[in-house]
């Protein structure tokens, strides 16, 4: 077992990553050792990346211990690069993190400077040239080969022609070098796709009241609405992220069935969302940044009021479902689509009404037949006691929910085989024999025998599966 990482105190005592644990223990008998957990490290990095979202939406992970932020066009909001770095260092110190920020022209240069810079330099290019070749983050063999060839720093490499370098050390070496020195274009891949539209509000003095947050959201949705109108588009999803001054944040999301850009609708949805939060919004020391994003936009033609005045009734239902879904949960309101299966429990696919806006036609039953499927279905079916002839006679009487039902009329069996081609365990599954039965009082039930006598089951069970109107 070897050390994967050491803290500053251990480093001062001469321990380094890669040292065998036995050796380290021999040197420091009371060494505190914690198991290496790369996944937890990655989670922490993700969390820090979320906190860094306050500076720019373009944040990329550089595992195991780095983050790359594209701050083009964002730094002036914090008083330039230096101001941004100072802000981040203060926040990181508050969170108990030790950070090494480094601004640079390319992502690779920033990564290299953050990890390998030891002495200050007059400018970025000079600083880069002083870095060791390990800063290229190439494989260990290549770095060793470069060292053996006497090429110790980036400056040594940059001074040479690239063709012989790539011939001897590989194409990758020169490509990485070119990106590091800004001679080739290089971009970061942000963790999340950029939303189509972002509106931000920063506050010099953090706001600590929910009403102020709401007013601000109204204002921002109006601004987003104007921007969307200019693009002749509307949003289907809206997300507001409230950044607290102590680094915590809170997300609010709303979704609409039809594209919209109406600020009053959005304001109402956000109000519903905040009211419906399971744990209420806690401003703590206040929010210092609110970002309002529209991740998905769809075309939406400019709307026109009716000539004779009055509101448009069109879209009223969609708006109602948006409101109810925002307040109570989008999965609570469902529309149904038919599915091509004969297993009764799976005959309908329930979709949230927000996403399944357009109704789908259902197959029509055959004329002249009585209803063959029940109105209410029990899932899972309920076990019942049945008196029936063995092996496959119809039920005569059955006991369901502690009441005896005398069957006067029946029809069946309707035999439904299990979908053996979809089963994972390789067994064909049990056949169900369904009966429509009616009892003395006229109540109609759908019951089935699970399995065939002899061939599939020794004592097939009977189940109540549904109730007819």
């Amino acid at each position, binding site marked *: 077992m070897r050390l994967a990482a050491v803290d500053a105190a251990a480093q001062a005592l001469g321990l380094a990553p890669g040292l065998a644990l036995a050796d380290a223990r021999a040197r420091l008998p009371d060494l505190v050792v914690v198991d290496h957990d790369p996944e937890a490290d990655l989670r922490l990095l993700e969390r820090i990346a979320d906190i860094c979202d306050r500076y720019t939406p373009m944040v990329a992970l550089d595992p195991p211990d780095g983050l790359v932020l594209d701050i083009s066009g964002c730094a002036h909001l914090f008083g330039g690069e230096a101001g941004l770095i100072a802000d981040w260092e203060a926040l990181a110190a508050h969170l108990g993190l030790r950070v090494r920020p480094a601004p640079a022209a390319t992502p690779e240069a920033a990564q290299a400077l953050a990890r390998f810079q030891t002495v200050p330099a007059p400018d970025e290019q000079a600083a880069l040239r002083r870095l060791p070749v390990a800063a290229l983050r190439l494989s260990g063999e290549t770095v060793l080969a470069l060292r053996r060839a006497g090429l110790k720093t980036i400056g040594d490499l940059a001074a040479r022609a690239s063709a012989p370098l790539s011939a001897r050390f590989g194409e990758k070496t020169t490509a990485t070098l070119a990106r590091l020195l800004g001679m080739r274009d290089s971009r970061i891949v942000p963790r999340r796709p950029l939303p189509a539209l972002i509106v931000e509000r920063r506050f010099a003095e953090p706001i600590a009241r929910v009403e102020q947050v709401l007013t601000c959201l109204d204002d921002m949705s109006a601004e987003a609405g104007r921007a969307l109108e200019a693009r002749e588009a509307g949003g289907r999803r809206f997300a507001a992220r409230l950044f607290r001054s102590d680094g915590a944040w809170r997300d609010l999301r709303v979704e609409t069935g039809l594209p919209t850009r109406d600020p009053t609708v959005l304001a109402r949805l956000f109000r519903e969302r905040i009211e419906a939060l399971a744990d209420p919004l806690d401003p703590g020391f206040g929010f210092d940044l609110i970002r309002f994003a529209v991740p998905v936009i769809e075309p939406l033609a400019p709307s026109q009021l009716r000539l004779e005045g009055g509101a448009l009734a069109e879209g009223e*239902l969609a708006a109602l479902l948006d409101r109810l879904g925002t307040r109570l949960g989008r999965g609570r309101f469902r529309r149904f689509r038919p599915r091509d299966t004969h297993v009764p429990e799976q005959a309908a696919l329930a979709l949230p009404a927000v996403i399944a806006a357009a109704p789908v036609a259902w197959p029509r039953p055959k004329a002249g037949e009585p209803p063959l499927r029940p109105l209410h279905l029990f899932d899972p079916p309920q076990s019942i006691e049945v008196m029936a002839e063995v092996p496959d006679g119809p039920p005569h009487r059955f006991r369901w929910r502690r009441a005896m039902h005398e069957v006067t009329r029946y029809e069946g069996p309707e035999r439904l085989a299990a979908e053996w081609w979809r089963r994972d365990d390789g067994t064909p599954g049990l056949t169900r024999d369904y009966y*429509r039965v009616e009892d003395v009082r006229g109540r109609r039930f759908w019951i089935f025998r699970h399995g065939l006598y002899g061939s599939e089951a020794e004592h097939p069970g009977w189940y109540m599966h549904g109730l007819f109107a």
Partner: protein
Amino acid sequence: MRESLQTLSALRRTIARIESQRPAEAPRLVALGHARIDAALGGGLMAGRLHEIFAGEAADASSAAGFALMLATRLMQGKGAILWLRAEEGEARGGRLHMPGLAELGFDPGALILGVLPDTLALLRAAAEAVRCREIGVVVLEIGRKPRALDLTASRRLAVAAEKSGVTALLLRTEAEPAPSAAQTRWAIAAAPSVPLEANAPGLTMLEAALLRQRAGIGGLRWRVEWDRDRLCFREPVLSGLVVPLPAGRPAAAGAGQPLRRTG
């Protein structure tokens, strides 16, 4: 004195203005297809009102739900959407609504939006909003037992909203006893033996429908009705020998000229 006269006339003008805003046209009546029921209802079921449907016993819940669905089918006539609101508890106890079963009753499940809500209070709140939405044809509220939230005020609120928007609200009550409410009509539904098909198979849906009460009309009537899925209407059972209209709660001799009404 003079001032109070002015106030009085101003008030009268205000009241006249409010009254003139009331819709002048008569409410839409939807015939159910069953001649005697339509006659008893004065032409048909009134759209844009609150109607209550009770399941006589817990086991009749499916019949009552089916009746609500049939009324909705008649009321909507292929237009608009139906919002069916249930509580989670009812969904667990009474079974899920099975869409192919809805289609078997002649209803298009594509027009249905099902809302499964955590409790009755949330359900009533959602319904109060939904009843105001003119794009919805029918709102069905399925409420089991006797929750405290469902009182006269709640039903009055629904009735007023329904009248204003023209959306019909059907209040489906399972395992409940009728109580005072603002509903236009109140029904009690129970299953009835069907007319058998060949080989003694259960036939078309047969219901025992009792009109317990209707506003400004006779109540306490009882019919046996069959639902004709192909023509989407109620009808008298084909085998007339089986059907005896039962005068409920009054002697058979009492004519229609002397209507008995249940109050409350």
